[in-house]
């Protein structure tokens, strides 16, 4: 048996999978980067690994999608399309795979249909396997993606999100698979998406078996995380019960919350008589050897808590969200409250909110709610906009049961029945006027945007524009090795930095002195390819700038708010100021919406009166205590 080569028609891929003696492996490099390194693995490192990864003979390389597209432009300043093109140059044989959140695409909220289709069409030029899921397993949320992937001639891999608990029975999942197949037909690979790495090997084996009993000709792709250290066990049982493809990653970068090492899976399954189809073990080993040395540059992005977390079976956080959750706890100074949050409040909230699947964006809703419940004192006292939307059914119906009425009342208010009646249900998100958006972007950029630029802009308007401007100013930084990109502490005089630019041209920088003049301006002297260059940096502005207020305690912020001085209660971005100067507000009226860690939170007036001054504007990043606006009492 030989491997599947990129570019093969879907029919042929499925024929190969259905008749395969043995199993296939997907290298989930993207999920490894997201789960254990906050998505910071640079294209530079993936390009180093590319040749061996291509040789290794994987079913696919999962290298885009999930949160990675946002992080690509936000933190790594690499164009997600360019990334795929560059990798394709070095990996002509391997299929590329993405993780798509259905109607939420690669973001956190439902997108209009025309944007979903446009985005899928453009990415499908580079992506061969489309793993698509919905956090409520609500199949209609995936229709548009299925359709566009089919039209593009690429492989659909719909997911059934997996979790544990009394409702999560084989019957439920087999029926869900049927619901999907009724839409897509059988020429798909069906993914069991075990994003938390939940359940035992036995449980996964039974589920695969149940699915295969009913749909023998649909190849199963098992996706898991090694959060509890037991994913190899689950993979083994999945394959023994009929799964055709499993997920693993390069050993030199394996951590705790991502996929387990490829080689361990291979060695274990061999003992059971299963061979990986078309896999070149030497190339698997060589990949890890080539990139091993790079790992030290990414250490800073590893989780604040080291070690496996068998308690994931209790809190159920997905591997992809572990890193960011712990980071938030560390930044917010509540790492010590984590046991309460993870092991008590999260399971409780999960149950109260319908025992749905803890995966994006549902996992963020559970997490934010649990954190607010523990830190805020009153449970469901300060509900996020997204929790409100969840209860209103904006994301889709609850899969098993609805939360109890008191929660609706807390979140939607005393007139919750009325609100639910009036606003409830999945909204048909109106199509966006693409020509108008294109024009708006052209205005911002000063040039006609490409389709790819437009797509990035439609997903992440502010961040995309910032990224385009960054590239304009600083060039294509993906060419820089992590040793340069993540350099800490600056360079010593006389140090030489070499790199090859986007066009393949070698450059050398010799570091000169960096004197500071009387007005505090620093001049950095570099010899760039033997030409002296000077880069000037203005003195860092002192504190006291707008939005950079000294950090206040939660109590102080609340006290100020009660006196009409509305401050930011946390570090976050202003999504919208919902009032105008001169407008009258009552206690409890929403005056602004802020966003932090991808979740929106309304800011409410704690005092009635007239809005007399607005300090912050849309897009501002505020620290806790940053001024938002001022309310003066009515005369």
């Amino acid at each position, binding site marked *: 048996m030989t491997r599947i080569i990129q570019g093969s028609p879907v029919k042929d891929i499925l024929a190969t999978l259905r008749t395969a003696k043995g199993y296939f492996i997907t290298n989930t490099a993207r999920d490894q980067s997201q789960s254990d390194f906050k998505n910071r693995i640079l294209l530079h490192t993936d390009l180093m690994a590319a040749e061996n990864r291509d040789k290794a003979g994987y079913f696919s390389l999962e290298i885009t999608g999930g949160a990675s597209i946002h992080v690509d432009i936000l933190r790594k300043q690499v164009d997600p399309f360019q990334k795929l093109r560059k990798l394709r140059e070095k990996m002509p044989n391997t299929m590329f795979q993405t993780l798509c959140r259905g109607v939420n695409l690669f973001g956190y909220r439902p997108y209009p249909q025309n944007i979903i289709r446009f985005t899928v069409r453009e990415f499908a030029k580079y992506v061969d396997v489309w793993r698509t899921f919905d956090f409520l397993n609500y199949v209609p949320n995936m229709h548009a993606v299925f359709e566009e992937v089919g039209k593009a001639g690429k492989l659909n891999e719909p997911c059934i999100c997996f979790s544990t608990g009394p409702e999560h029975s084989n019957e439920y999942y087999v029926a869900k698979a049927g619901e999907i197949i009724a839409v897509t037909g059988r020429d798909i690979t069906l993914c069991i998406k075990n994003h938390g790495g939940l359940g035992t090997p036995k449980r996964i084996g039974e589920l695969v078996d149940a699915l295969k009993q009913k749909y023998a000709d649909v190849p199963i792709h098992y996706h898991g995380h090694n959060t509890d250290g037991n994913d190899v066990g689950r993979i083994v049982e999945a394959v023994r019960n009929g799964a055709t493809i499993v997920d693993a990653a390069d050993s030199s970068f394996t951590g705790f919350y991502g996929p387990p090492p490829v080689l361990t899976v291979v060695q274990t399954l061999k003992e059971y008589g299963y061979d990986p189809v078309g896999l070149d073990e030497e190339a698997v080993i060589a990949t890890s050897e080539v990139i091993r040395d790079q790992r030290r540059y990414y250490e800073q992005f590893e989780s604040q808590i080291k070690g496996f977390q068998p308690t994931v079976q209790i809190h159920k956080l997905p591997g992809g969200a572990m890193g960011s959750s712990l980071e938030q706890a560390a930044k917010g100074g509540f790492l010590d409250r984590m046991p309460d949050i993870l092991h008590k409040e999260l399971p409780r909230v999960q149950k109260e909110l319908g025992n749905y699947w803890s995966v994006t964006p549902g996992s963020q809703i559970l997490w934010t709610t649990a954190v607010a419940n523990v830190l805020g004192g009153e449970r469901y006292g300060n509900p996020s906009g997204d929790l409100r939307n969840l209860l209103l059914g904006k994301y889709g119906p609850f899969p098993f049961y609805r939360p109890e009425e008191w929660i609706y009342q807390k979140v939607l208010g005393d007139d919750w029945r009325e609100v639910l009646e009036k606003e409830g249900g999945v909204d048909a998100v109106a199509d966006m006027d693409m020509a108008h958006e294109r024009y708006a972007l052209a205005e911002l950029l000063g040039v006609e945007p490409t389709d790819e630029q437009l797509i990035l802009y439609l997903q992440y308007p502010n961040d995309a524009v910032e990224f385009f401007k960054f590239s304009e100013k600083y*060039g294509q*930084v993906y060419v820089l090795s992590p040793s340069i*990109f993540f350099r800490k*502490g*600056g360079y010593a005089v006389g140090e030489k930095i070499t790199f090859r630019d986007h066009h393949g041209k070698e*450059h050398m920088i010799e570091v000169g002195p960096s004197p500071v003049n009387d007005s505090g301006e620093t001049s*950095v002297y570099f010899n*760039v390819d033997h030409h002296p260059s000077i880069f000037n940096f203005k003195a860092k502005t002192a504190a006291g700038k707008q939005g950079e207020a000294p950090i206040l305690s939660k109590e102080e912020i609340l006290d100020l708010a009660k006196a009409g001085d509305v401050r930011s209660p946390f570090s976050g971005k202003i999504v919208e100021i919902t009032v105008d100067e001169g407008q009258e507000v009552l206690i409890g009226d929403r005056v602004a919406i802020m966003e932090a860690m991808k979740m929106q939170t309304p800011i409410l007036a704690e005092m009635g009166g007239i809005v007399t001054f607005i300090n912050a504007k849309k897009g501002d990043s505020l620290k806790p205590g940053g001024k938002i606006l001022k309310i003066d009492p009515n005369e």
Partner: protein
Amino acid sequence: MKKKILVANRGEIAIRLTRAIQELGYEAIAVYETPDEMSRHIRIADEAILLGDGPRCDYLSIEKIIRAAKKSGACAIHPGYGFLAENPFFAKACENNGIIFIGPTSEIILNLGNKVIARKIMAEAGIPMVPGTQNLKQGREGVAEALSFAAKYGYPIMLKATSGGGGRGIRRIETDAEMQEMIPVARAEALAAFNDDSVFLEKVVINPKHVEVQILADSHGHTVHLGTRDCSIQRRNQKLIEIAPSMINNRPLLDEICDTAVKAAKAANYLNAGTVEFLIDKDQNYYFMEINTRVQVEHTVTEMITGIDIVRNQINIAFGKPLSFTQEDVQIRGHAIEVRINAEDPKNDFMPEGGKKVTVYRSTGGFGVRLDGFVYQGYVIPEVYDSLLVKLTVHGFTWEETVGRLKRCLHNFAIRGPKTTIPFYMNIANEKDFVTGNFDTSYIETHPHIFHYDEDASEAGKLARFIAQVHYSRENPFAK
């Protein structure tokens, strides 16, 4: 004693002429104005004569230049382009003083310089022309004439100064009201600029290609052409990029245009080097525009694809020698592109960077590359003359090779101090329509994004800026 030829010009063309003169074994006499006393054309000449304090007026002084020629014992004068090159009175003065004017006779310059006479000569020879008028009559009668022409051919219409040239004295008219308003304005301007207030009209050919044919005609009755050039990439009728031969994929048409050019030159009894300019519309109809009676800035592209030294031939023709080759000997080989690297800011309406000093100058080289330059490290961009630093001409066997060479060469330049047009040309060299040879005179206005670049940063410079930021911040502030 060696023959002496006076070079009545400055800048890169003075150097170009001096080289040809010296290669022929003659001596080159430079002239200069005080602001040019440090200039390179003086350094390489065999002798230099100060004309006066200028600026510009002395290079334009027929009397001073004739006096300099006599003083130095020059038997001939080459006027180059610009300044007195197409001034029939200068040619006449040379003739009257027994000095050979390297160019056509004063009569030819006079006739072809007058657009209306030129049109008449061409019409009689059956050369296809854009519909146009004679000189408009003065006053109301002329306006009425103009309006009836507009009624017949429709707008837009070009209102041109009969004695104008080089893009000056031309305006586009869109409505009757504008026509009535602009005729007196154009007359006043023409009078001030060219000492002749005659104006005429021409129908506008919408978004044409600008194709011209290089002609050489000797005094023995031989007239040959050296193929076509495309100068469509223009800004307000000022050429920016010139290529040879034309990219129109219609060999019979180009052959016909070249034959027509020879016919036109013969009809005008043309002598020496000249350029017959045509407009070609979307349906590949071509129209005679004018004959330029000088060596042109873009002559280098023709030299590259034919291997024929136009300036050398100009001098030989002027000395009465027959052309040393026939039409059949002229072979077009490959493609050539010329860009004018100016110390200008394209983003700021091509504002010259006068007064700025070139602190670093590193040029390009290698196979198929020609530089006609004036600049050197330490050169200060003159505020009183043009801002041309160097003309880069690249030659390649195929168009693709030539564009690749252009990109490579632009990339090789390192010029610090003034802003230059290099990044602007770099954008054009990377632009799809240019790369596929698909451009006409609307190119600049229909491709506004070519103005979008970061002037002081090559890719290496940008990345260096990023690394400087990481160095200064002691961490990557964008990766947090």
